[in-house]
């Protein structure tokens, strides 16, 4: 008979290599705080994520949203590259709009990569095509890191929502 799960919540385990000396350090620090290594590691990760979020909020004040940065950088691009990015963004926004209209259940299933409806399938196909355009055209021609970061982040978010492998 399988042993009962120690952690009832369905999460995931990640294997990572760390030198033995570092692991011993984790053990020492965890013990000094009366925690297990797992609890201590989880606390370190959760705290680091919170700190990153807080520093991102401080570093990016609301006065400078990504769209404003994008509009600013677009002006500096060559006309052909600008046209490429504008067209790409239109398709991306269209896909985001269609995704927003899905029901929470459909979204949940889509995220797990399961086919739920022809609409989800169509959006997924659009996103895959956008990804190809990004890799083959945008990335090669538009060599401005700020623009690529903004577009890439939004594309990645869409891919994640639709369970498209990265």
């Amino acid at each position, binding site marked *: 008979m399988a042993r009962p799960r120690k*952690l009832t*919540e*369905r*999460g*995931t*385990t*990640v*294997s*990572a*290599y*760390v030198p033995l000396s*570092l*692991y011993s*350090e*984790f053990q020492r*620090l965890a013990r000094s705080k009366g925690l297990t290594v*797992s609890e201590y*590691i*989880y*606390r*370190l*990760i*959760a*705290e*680091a*994520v919170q*700190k*990153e979020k807080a520093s991102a909020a401080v570093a990016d004040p609301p006065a400078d949203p990504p769209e404003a940065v994008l509009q600013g950088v677009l002006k500096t691009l060559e006309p052909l590259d600008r046209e490429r990015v504008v067209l790409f963004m239109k398709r991306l926004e269209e896909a985001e709009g269609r995704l927003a209209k899905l029901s929470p259940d459909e979204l949940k299933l889509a995220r797990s990569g399961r086919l739920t409806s022809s609409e989800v399938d169509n959006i997924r196909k659009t996103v895959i095509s956008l990804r190809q355009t990004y890799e083959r055209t945008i990335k090669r021609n538009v060599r401005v890191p700020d623009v690529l970061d903004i577009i*890439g*982040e939004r594309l*990645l*978010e869409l891919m*994640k929502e639709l369970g498209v492998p*990265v």
Partner: protein
Amino acid sequence: MTIYLPADLKEELAGRAAARRMSLSEYAVSLILKGLYAEKDEEAKKNGKAKEAD
């Protein structure tokens, strides 16, 4: 080392790791190390203050 991540934290980390073009385990270890160094810094500061007080 095996790291257990609850589902919500895994989602969060996976997104952040992908944005940085890193694997989930690479990103998780980088966060752990950041936390560890921050904690060591704090420990060192505390020890320094304790010595000053002595």
